């Protein structure tokens, strides 16, 4: 029985040692190199007696970063990816929450880490991979590990202003990779074009199937997602046949007519998710790639990657939403109404998830974990956890699951999951601000900030860029003389939305 994600690598490296596993435009690492380097990193971490600790990987989007993840897993620790593009304030919050004993940098970030108030060990990737591999040590670590031991923490937006660390284990990742691969039919010929950052769980879709099948993943430079023709040229140059992208990356290509000029002719599998795919744009893709498979994916980070899928196999009206379909094998979706009962057919309920794919919860936050990972209310006979997503869904007449909306103020923007409360909390840390409220323009997909305070919009923008990741900085910022309030003294979001819509 497979108990460790690295067994994928250990089987594949014998079969295709010299094939490229992960590459960017400059370099490619073969499976043999991935295997040797990650075990060297594992040996090196073990030398410092680090075990079952969060190890921060502070490197950019690069094949070496992926190898470092696996090195951390070889050592029996778990990796926490931090991107060099994250704002300082967010990195500080994450460090506070983790209190890590070790950080792995590369030559680009070694100087950056010195500017943080961090006293633990600092490793450099370039040095670590020179360590002589100790097979006996690697074997001992493996022998004492079990499949519910953690492998990573990724941070997701938190409504109070502090990001939450979601911690996942071997078992949940293996379950996800097996089910996902079955649906998307990956194999050794698969060539992935990775779009999502390495610090979110979305990249699991490329990272682990590459190991499982001996496939190849190209990391696409972020910059290319601004320039549609260059992006399609990249896909063709590297003969990329499979993409798992956020919808906005796909519509960027179709909306500007890039498909009319150049077809991504090798693409046969297109998975998308995190947002609603506008039907008009979807049809453009379908028209240019009539033989490709299009699969909508849905799922929260808390249930490891994705939980549901829908392969598009019929036409949709322009105002229709593509279903999120049905759960992966070995996952069950339970809809629950306000009384935690199953709603009538066709009525809305909260989407709750049951299955091995559930992550372990939020790191060092039992309170938050217990709020959303709860005993299955339909089972009073033995302990059984389900995860409550906070998403509302219903079944259509065909028995397909449809996403309706959020229960709270969480939004999806550029494929990222964002709590408007986290943005507001960041605005409130600016001393001149008296009051602030964020709303989301669903149509134009803009985050709109209203605030009251003696500070210019330009200075607000400047300060927020230091505190928030780029995708969370409001797209429209407006000053108000007073904040509209409801009768019980809360900010009147409805009125603000009306004001914005009437503009």
């Amino acid at each position, binding site marked *: 029985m497979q108990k460790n994600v690295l067994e994928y690598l250990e089987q594949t490296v014998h079969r295709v040692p010299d094939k490229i596993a992960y590459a960017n435009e400059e370099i490619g690492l073969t499976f043999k190199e991935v295997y040797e380097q990650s075990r060297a990193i594992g040996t090196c971490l073990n030398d410092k007696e680090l075990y079952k600790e969060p190890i921060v990987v502070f490197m950019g989007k690069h094949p070496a970063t992926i190898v470092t993840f696996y090195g951390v897993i070889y050592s029996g620790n778990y990796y926490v990816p931090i991107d060099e593009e994250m704002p300082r304030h967010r990195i500080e919050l994450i460090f506070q929450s983790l209190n890590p004993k070790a950080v792995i940098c590369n030559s680009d970030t070694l100087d950056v880490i010195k500017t943080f108030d961090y006293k633990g060990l600092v490793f450099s990737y370039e040095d670590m991979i020179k360590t002589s591999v100790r097979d006996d040590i690697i074997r001992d670590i493996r022998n004492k590990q079990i499949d519910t031991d953690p492998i990573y923490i990724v941070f997701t937006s938190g409504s109070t202003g502090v990001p939450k660390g979601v911690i996942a284990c071997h078992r949940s990742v293996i379950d996800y990779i097996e089910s996902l691969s079955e649906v998307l039919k990956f194999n050794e010929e698969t060539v992935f074009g990775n779009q999502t950052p390495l610090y979110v769980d979305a990249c699991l879709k490329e990272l682990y199937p590459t190991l499982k099948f001996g496939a190849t993943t190209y990391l696409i430079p972020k910059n290319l997602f601004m*320039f549609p023709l260059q992006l399609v040229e990249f896909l063709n140059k590297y003969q990329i046949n499979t993409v798992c992208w956020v919808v906005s990356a796909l519509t960027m290509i179709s909306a500007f007519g890039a498909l009319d000029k150049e077809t991504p002719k090798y693409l046969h599998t297109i998975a998308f998710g995190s947002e609603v795919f506008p039907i008009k744009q979807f049809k453009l893709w379908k028209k240019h790639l009539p033989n490709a498979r299009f699969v909508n994916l849905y799922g929260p980070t808390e249930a490891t990657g994705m939980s549901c899928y829908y392969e598009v196999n019929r036409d949709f009206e322009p105002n229709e939403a593509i279903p999120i379909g049905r759960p992966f094998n070995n996952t069950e979706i339970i809809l629950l109404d306000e009384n935690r009962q199953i709603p009538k057919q066709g009525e809305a309920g909260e989407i709750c998830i049951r299955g091995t794919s559930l992550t372990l919860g939020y790191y060092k936050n039992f309170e938050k974990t217990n709020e959303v990972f709860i005993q299955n209310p339909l089972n009073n006979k033995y302990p059984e956890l389900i995860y409550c997503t906070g998403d509302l869904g219903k079944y259509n007449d065909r028995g397909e699951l449809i996403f309706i909306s959020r229960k709270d103020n969480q939004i999806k923007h550029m494929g990222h999951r964002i709590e408007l409360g986290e943005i507001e909390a960041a605005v409130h840390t600016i001393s001149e601000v008296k009051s602030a409220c964020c709303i989301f323009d669903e149509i134009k997909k803009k985050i709109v900030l209203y605030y009251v305070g003696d500070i210019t919009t330009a200075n607000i*923008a400047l300060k927020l860029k230091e505190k928030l990741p780029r995708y969370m900085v409001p797209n429209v910022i407006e000053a108000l003389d007073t904040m509209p309030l409801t009768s019980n003294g809360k900010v009147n979001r409805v009125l603000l939305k009306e004001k914005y819509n009437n503009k």
Partner: protein
Amino acid sequence: MEQIIKILSELHPDVDFETCDTLIDDKIIDSFDIVTIISELCDEFDITIPVEEIIPKNFNSAKALHAMVERLIEEE
């Protein structure tokens, strides 16, 4: 030119678009901004921006955007 500066400033009130000529190189604008800028330029000047024009050098500064818009207006 004024209209272009206005569109850009609404996206990033903290940036001096009169002088900055490294909007792409220094990652000042991102893919969301590009989409917004294109849609607003098309509305404002009643033009369509062909995909061949959506390349880094046309978006690196307000001046470059202005030159592209002028050229497209002339061609129409």
